[in-house]
């Protein structure tokens, strides 16, 4: 019997987000607002990677690559018409008059990232386990090299800067709700169950009629779409996109959030993303004041290794905690054991 608790939780989440974003935008200073926005973007990234990585078990290191694709697309679409000839003199003709408002540009960015994911998926998704991880890492490095060299569109290593600061807490909060809702619906749909089945035992799932390729590709594409949107939000928050920011370190950070929260648990990803972002922000003044750069990363990797050794399932395991699901019968594979 399905409980209504998730619906109440969603309602509460939306109400909280509205009140919170309206409240904080009137009271807090820019620094706090930036941190809150980063937290939201990290939530989007962690939850969307969880679809690829946690539900379908596709260990992808390519999340920042999709972010970069989304970020650059959004940036190019919203780039102000006056600055375009100045910043990008060699832009291809057909791109010059293209201009979109922020929201459609984000959608286009996300869709373009999803399209690339489809193409990448066709070739890479035949691999499994850490071979897939390495192939997606190769994809990430290839994207970085291309961004660094396609000077006419991306300005190479300089990146696109001087973007308008469209992203604010309300935009991020809205996308956080959309991401959590979509991923929750996927998890508890028949498609989500197919993903879990593919993750547990692909051969058994296949023999029961689950289309392996379609399921895996769908998981990768959904992850990529939200990563693309997050990239757009991110670019318009720090008002620049550069190839160097979408690095392996970033994919490591997102993976830490997913693993710490519990691979497959949406609640876990959200919690871990909040803790992670706040922890990073706590370490930053420490690093700058005492000149001990790198301490934050060391502590984070240490925590990751300890969690992998002592509690490999993370904070919430693969399921969702009772206070969110109510009496909902959990479909996590570890439940029956």
């Amino acid at each position: 019997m399905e409980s209504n608790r998730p619906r109440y939780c969603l309602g509460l989440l939306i109400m909280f987000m509205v009140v919170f974003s309206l409240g904080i935008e009137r009271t807090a200073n820019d620094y706090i607002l930036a941190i809150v926005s980063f937290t939201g973007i990290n939530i989007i990234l962690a939850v969307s990677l969880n679809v690829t990585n946690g539900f379908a078990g596709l260990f992808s290191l390519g999340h920042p690559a999709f972010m970069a694709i989304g970020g650059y697309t959004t940036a190019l679409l919203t780039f102000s018409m006056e600055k375009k000839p100045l910043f990008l003199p060699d832009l291809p003709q057909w791109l010059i008059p293209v201009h979109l408002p922020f929201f459609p540009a984000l959608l286009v960015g996300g869709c373009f990232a999803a399209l690339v994911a489809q193409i990448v998926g066709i070739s890479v998704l035949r691999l499994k386990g850490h071979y897939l991880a390495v192939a997606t890492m190769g994809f990430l490095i290839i994207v970085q090299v291309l961004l660094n060299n396609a000077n006419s569109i991306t300005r190479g290593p300089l990146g696109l800067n001087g973007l308008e600061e469209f992203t604010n807490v309300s935009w991020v909060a809205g996308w956080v709700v959309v991401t959590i809702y979509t991923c929750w619906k996927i998890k508890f749909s028949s498609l989500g169950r197919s993903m879990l089945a593919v993750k547990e035992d692909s051969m058994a799932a296949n023999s029961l009629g689950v289309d392996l390729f379609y399921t895996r590709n769908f998981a990768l594409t959904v992850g990529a779409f939200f990563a693309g949107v997050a990239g757009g939000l991110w670019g318009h928050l720090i008002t620049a996109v550069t190839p160097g920011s979408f690095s392996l370190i970033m994919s490591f950070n997102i993976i830490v959030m997913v693993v710490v929260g519990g691979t497959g648990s949406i609640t876990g990803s959200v919690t871990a993303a909040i803790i992670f972002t706040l922890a990073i922000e706590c370490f930053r003044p420490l690093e700058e004041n005492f000149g001990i750069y790198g301490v934050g990363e060391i502590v984070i990797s240490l925590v990751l290794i300890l969690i992998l050794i002592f509690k490999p399932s993370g904070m919430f395991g693969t399921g969702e905690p009772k206070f969110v699901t109510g009496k909902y019968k959990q479909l996590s594979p570890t439940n029956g054991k």
Partner: protein
Amino acid sequence: MDFGYIAQQLANGLILGSMYALVAIGFSMIYGIVRLINFAHGDIVMIGAFTTLVLMETAGLPFPLVAFFVLLTGCGMGILIERISFRPMRGAPQVTGFIASLGISIMLQNLGILTLSAQPRNFSFPSYMQRILNLGPVSFRVVDVVIILTAFFLMVALIFLVQKTKLGIAMRATAENIDVARLMGIDINKTIMATFAIGSGLAAIAGLMWGGKFGQIDPLMGYVPGLKSFVAAVIGGVGSIPGAILGAFILGLSEVLFVGLLPPIYSSYRDAFVFGVLIIILIAMPNGLLGKDIGDKA
């Protein structure tokens, strides 16, 4: 484009290839025995380079002694990493070890930044190593010859070790089937530890060479050679030592030729080329050139 130019490029490829080979062997051995892609392997290269810097510039030891101590440091680091993080995870899903090695890699890099600062440091071998030799159209530095000779010596020694000694037989048995090897009375823990020690020792020596060849080292230097050596190991077939050596030379030569023979505008696409090759090989021939069919890759 005359013969001399191509010969020079080939020589450069050979040098690059022998450094990749030393790192790739470790990757391959560790993968072969515990099915772990050890991402932190590249950072042993960095540790090796900095150990060399300390021993040579500060302590002023003679070169062979430096090389010996660098080898020991590498072995020690390998054992430490295996004991602290990979042994408690043995038996967990493959990806767990991979994430952990990623974590260790980031930790080592940042420990390097914390203790040594992110500034690149100059690195100079003694002057007799820098002398230039001319061999027909090709010019070498002594250090290049030392790199190639050391690499070949270590490779031959390693193949002897794996094929002929008791430890080598234990390693091959463990790689074949860990449970049966345990039943045959092989001390699995010791064997795996020895594998990590040998692989990491070779990587540390590669770090010494990398510093000597390029003259500059920094805490993040291990990242790129580590990744590329992994590509080399995949080309040759992960798990196979001759495969790793072959793959490393193929990668070293083709990388140098890619930069040397194509017009210069393509040379910044070098890394994209290397990783494009990686993806194609993973998809088209996941067992590599000399690897055995393990069956859990694709």
